[in-house]
C-alpha cells in the first residue's frame, strides 16, 4: 500500500476546524474525516475540491430525514407543547408560531404554562396582544397542569384551530421538574383528541454538545415530535443538530432567526447546510 494517496494534512486541519467550530462534535467529525480519508486512499476522491464536496454531501445525507412540516389536526383543535431548558427562546417561539399560524388563517390561542418564573405570564400576555391572539393565563405560582386543563377547554369552547402551550424553562437533570412536565403532557393528552399534536423541544443554536443530553433527556420523558433551533441569526452555526439527529430521531421543524414575531422559518436542510459553510 506504499504510495496510496493521502489527504493533505493542512486540508484535514481546515476541515476539522470548520466542522468543530460549527459545534458538529467529536463523534460526527471523526466519522466524516474517516469517511473522507477512506475515499481518498482508495482513489475515489482526487482533488481537495472533491474532498470538500464529499464532506458537504456527507453532511447533507445526515440531514436527509431531518426536516418536516408542522403537524395539524385535520379534525379539530391542534395542541402544541413547547418545552426546553431555561432561556432558549420558548416563549418567543410560541409568539412566533402564533404569528405564523395566524397568517395562515388559523384561529390561534396561547396557554401561559410558565406559572413559575418572574413575569413569565406578563411576557406572554404582551406577546398575545402584539400578535392579536387570546392568551389563557392563571396566577403566578399556580399549578401548570390546571392551567393546561383550562386552556384546552377554553380553546375547544372557542373553536380554536391551534393552542400553543408555553412551559417553564427547566434543566433536564432536575427529576422533579421533568416529572412535572410529564404530568402536564398527560393532562393535555387526556383533554384533547390526539393531543399534543406537536411536542417541540427548543434548542439554542449557541449550545454546544450539551444539546445532545437535553434532547435525550427530554425525549426520555416526552414523545418529542420536533425541534426548533433558535438564535441562528447569531454567529453560532447550530451544528449540534448533527449529533442530536444521530441520537434522537426527531426532525427540526423551525428555526428562529431573530427576536421579532416574524423571525421564524420552516427548517430547510439545504439552506442550513449552505449557511454552515458561508
Amino acid at each position: 500500500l506504499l504510495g496510496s494517496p493521502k489527504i493533505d494534512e493542512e486540508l484535514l486541519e481546515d476541515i476539522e476546524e470548520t466542522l468543530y467550530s460549527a459545534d458538529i462534535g467529536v463523534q460526527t467529525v471523526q466519522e466524516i474525516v474517516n469517511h473522507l480519508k477512506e475515499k481518498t486512499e482508495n482513489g475515489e476522491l482526487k482533488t481537495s475540491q472533491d474532498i470538500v464536496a464529499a464532506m458537504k454531501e456527507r453532511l447533507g445525507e445526515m440531514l436527509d430525514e431531518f426536516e418536516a412540516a408542522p403537524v395539524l389536526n385535520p379534525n379539530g383543535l391542534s395542541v402544541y407543547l413547547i418545552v426546553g431548558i431555561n432561556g432558549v427562546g420558548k416563549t418567543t417561539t410560541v409568539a412566533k408560531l402564533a404569528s405564523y399560524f395566524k397568517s395562515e388563517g388559523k384561529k390561534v390561542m396561547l396557554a401561559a404554562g410558565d406559572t413559575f418564573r418572574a413575569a413569565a405570564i406578563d411576557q406572554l400576555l404582551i406577546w398575545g396582544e402584539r400578535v392579536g391572539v387570546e392568551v389563557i393565563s392563571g396566577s403566578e405560582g399556580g399549578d401548570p397542569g390546571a392551567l393546561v386543563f383550562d386552556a384546552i377547554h377554553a380553546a375547544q369552547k372557542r373553536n380554536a384551530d391551534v393552542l400553543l402551550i408555553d412551559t417553564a424553562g427547566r434543566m433536564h437533570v432536575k427529576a422533579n421538574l421533568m416529572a412535572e412536565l410529564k404530568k402536564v403532557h398527560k393532562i393535555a393528552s387526556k383533554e384533547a383528541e390526539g393531543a399534543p399534536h406537536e411536542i417541540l423541544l427548543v434548542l439554542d443554536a449557541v449550545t454546544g454538545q450539551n444539546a445532545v443530553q437535553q434532547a435525550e433527556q427530554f425525549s426520555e420523558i416526552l414523545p418529542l415530535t420536533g425541534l426548533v433551533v433558535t438564535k441562528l441569526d447569531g454567529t453560532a452555526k447550530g451544528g449540534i443538530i448533527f449529533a442530536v439527529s444521530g441520537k434522537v430521531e426527531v426532525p427540526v421543524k423551525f428555526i428562529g432567526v431573530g427576536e421579532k414575531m416574524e423571525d421564524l422559518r420552516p427548517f430547510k436542510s439545504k439552506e442550513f447546510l449552505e449557511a454552515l459553510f458561508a
Partner: protein
Amino acid sequence: NLSDKLGQVFSKLRGKGKLTEKDIDEALNEVKIALLEADVNFKVVRRFTKKVKERALGAEILKSLTPTQQVVKIVMEELTSLLGEKRVKITVSPKKPTIILMAGLQGSGKTTTSAKLALNLRKEEQKNPMLVACDVYRPAAVKQLQVLGEQLSVKVFAGEKGERPADIAARAVEFARNENFDTVIIDTAGRLHIDEQMMGEIKEIADKVKPHEVLLVVDAMTGQDAVNMATEFNELLSLTGIILTKLDGDARGGAALSIREVTGKPVKFVGMGEKASQLEPFHPDRMAQRILG
C-alpha cells in the same frame, strides 16, 4: 472518563523510564477529544495541548505516579491555572456608588443574575445595592426585574417610557448617589455581538456611567461560539469579569476555559439554579475536573 482513557493508552508503558513523544501524542489525542466534547474552543484546545506536550516531553516518570497520573496531573495543573484564581471579588469603588454593568447574549441569565448579585452583595459584603432596568425591549423585562427586586426587598430603578437605556442608567446612578445606595447593578437587554446597533447601545451606557465592573454573563452550555462573542464584548467594553450561569445543568462548561484563555478576565461567580440565593464563588479546580469529565 479521561483518566480511564489515558490509563488504556499507557497500559503498554509499564517499565519505561520516560514518556516518548509518540506516547504523549497518543495521550494528548485523548485530552483533545475530552476538551472538544466539553465544548472547549477548537483553537484553544490546539494551543492547550501544545502547552501540555511541552511540559510532558522529557518529564521523568515520577516514582510515585503512573504515566497516566503524570499526564493527568499536568493537564489538571494547566487547566486550573488557566481557569484562574477563585474568589475574585466584585470591585468596590472608593467613590460611591460602585457601578456594575451586566452584558451578554439573549437568555444567558443576566436579569436573574443581576438579582442574585444584589442579594449576594447585601448578605456577603453588607452593601446596599440598587437594580437598574435598562432592558427596554423584551416584553415584561422591566417587570421581571421589579418582581425579583420585590422578592428580595431590593430597590429597582426603572426609566420612563421611550427613555434611552444610557439616560436611564445615568439618572439611576444620580438617584443612587443621592439616596445612599452604594452599589448600582445595571441589567441590560440580551444582544448579539454582531448587532452593531445594540453593541453601540451598550457602549453608550458604559461611556455614560463609566462602570467599575463590566460582567459578561455566559451560559455554561455555550459551544464553540463562546470565543467569538466574548472577544467582541471584551474588545468593545473591556470586561472586568465573567459570570457563568446554569452550572446546575450537566454541561461540561468548556466555554469557561475558552473565554478565560482569550480574554484573560476572571470568572467571578457561577449561577447554580434559578433562585436568587443560587450564586456561588468560582472554583477553578472543580471547574477543571468538570471540564475533563
